[in-house]
């Protein structure tokens, strides 16, 4: 379903993703793990047409995103790591906007929005502006929005960050359901190793832009001789704390600051 070959992304002389290759099969739940700044989000952005790779090949659902952007976008859905809601619209309007953009048929639009907003317990607040929402509520809305249409592949970039255990549990049940019923392929990143251990069929661990290990959670544990994934992860990536890679925006700010000082 997802094929990646020798994928590389450079920002100036910084290599964010360094010659990685992997495959994700149809209906597989694939965990993509790594410390901060390892290249997870950059990879997801390239898979979802938001960034152009420096080199290498990607195939999503048999389509090359570099050549057929619009076509590729029809086959996936994504929940972003950072906020992507319109704060000036209400929760319902955000959902409806998404449903129209993703061509959810009009007759199932309303019931599904209601179902999902109930699922994240925001139905009562559907007519409030998102700017008045708390951080947790925004996150829940974002998750609900990601499930509005049922794509062939769903990308989840740290979806459970900041969610309470109840919502988290509910979310994974929903994803498992989609995965079983509609054969949805799931590609997710997380920092919660216990979560990855529980839900992922297969895992790849990326560090410094390179894939350092991949396999089932059991294989990774066996490979490192540890009895839980957290220890295996630390064994593979070391225990040094990483600096978060600057986003495009931060880099831009830095550049413009330097420019002004000159």
């Amino acid at each position, binding site marked *: 379903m997802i094929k990646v070959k020798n994928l590389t992304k450079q920002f100036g002389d910084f290599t964010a993703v360094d010659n990685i290759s992997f495959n994700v099969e149809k209906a597989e739940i694939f965990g993509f793990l790594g410390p901060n700044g390892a290249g997870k989000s950059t990879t997801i952005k390239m898979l979802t047409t938001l960034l152009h790779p420096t080199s290498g090949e990607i195939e999503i659902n048999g389509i090359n995103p570099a050549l057929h952007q619009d076509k590729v976008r029809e086959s996936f859905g994504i929940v972003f790591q950072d906020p*992507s809601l319109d704060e*000036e619209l209400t929760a319902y309007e955000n959902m409806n906007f998404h449903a129209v953009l993703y061509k959810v048929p009009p007759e199932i639009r309303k019931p599904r929005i209601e179902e999902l907003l109930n699922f994240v317990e925001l139905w009562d607040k559907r007519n409030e502006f998102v700017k008045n929402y708390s951080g947790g509520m925004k996150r829940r809305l974002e998750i609900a929005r990601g499930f509005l249409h049922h794509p062939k592949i769903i990308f989840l970039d740290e979806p459970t960050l900041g969610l309470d255990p109840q919502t988290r549990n509910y979310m994974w049940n929903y994803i498992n359901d989609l995965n079983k019923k509609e054969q949805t392929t799931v590609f997710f990143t997380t920092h919660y190793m216990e979560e990855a251990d529980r839900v992922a069929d297969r895992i790849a661990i990326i560090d410094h832009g390179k894939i350092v290990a991949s396999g089932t959670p059991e294989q990774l544990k066996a490979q490192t001789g540890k009895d839980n994934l957290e220890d295996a992860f630390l064994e593979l990536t070391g225990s040094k704390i990483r600096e978060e890679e600057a986003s495009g925006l931060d880099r831009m700010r830095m550049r413009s600051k330097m420019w002004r000082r000159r």
Partner: protein
Amino acid sequence: MSTIYILWLRQIKRYLRSRSRIIGSLGQPVLFLVALGFGFGPIFQKAGQGSYIEFLAPGIIAMSILFTAIFSGVEMIWDRQFGFLKETLVAPVSRLNIMIGRVFGGATASVFQGIIVLIISMIAGFRVHSVGLILLSLVFMILISLLFTALGTAIASMLEDFQGFQLIMSFLVMPLFFLSGALFPIQGLPEAMKIVASVDPLSYGVDGLRFALTGASHFGIGIDFAVLTIITFLLLVAGSFLFSRIEV
């Protein structure tokens, strides 16, 4: 079609909800109308040019459209910063449609703004030349709106944050306005200024609008219409190209 509609609707909702912005952006045209209109009125009259308010009002309408339109386009930088741009960019719709929806939405808001200023100028003493030609003035308002919303969107496609916004205001928007013949007749200008005014697309917008509202024109209505249409089209093409290349 539904993509264009929902993006248009979003722009309209955002516009109507930002009351402070609507009112705020009316302050400037009102000030210009009153201060310049009444301030320069007597001199203009003495110079044998007739009523200055009559001359100025179409220019001020064009100005308020210019500002609203450019801002609607540049507003996309907010979307980028708040992350909402990503949401639209990964959607399974063509970026051309996204761009068109945005531009139409911004342009509609700008036309609305232009109509409000027209009404305000009428309160200030401006009289339209012929009621039948009001429809023609609407055509020009739409053209000016489309042109500058497309320009704003094209610019916003190249900017990552608001750092460059001041630069755009001082080196693009302000010159576009002040050199356009919105405030003074182009006829009597020195040759160099005349040339500058004739490469400023807003000149043709102001001129067309002035013809529709007062019956006077410098370039001729046909040329105004043709120039605006062609430039709008070119900007839409350039804007879609830049928009399609956005990376987040």
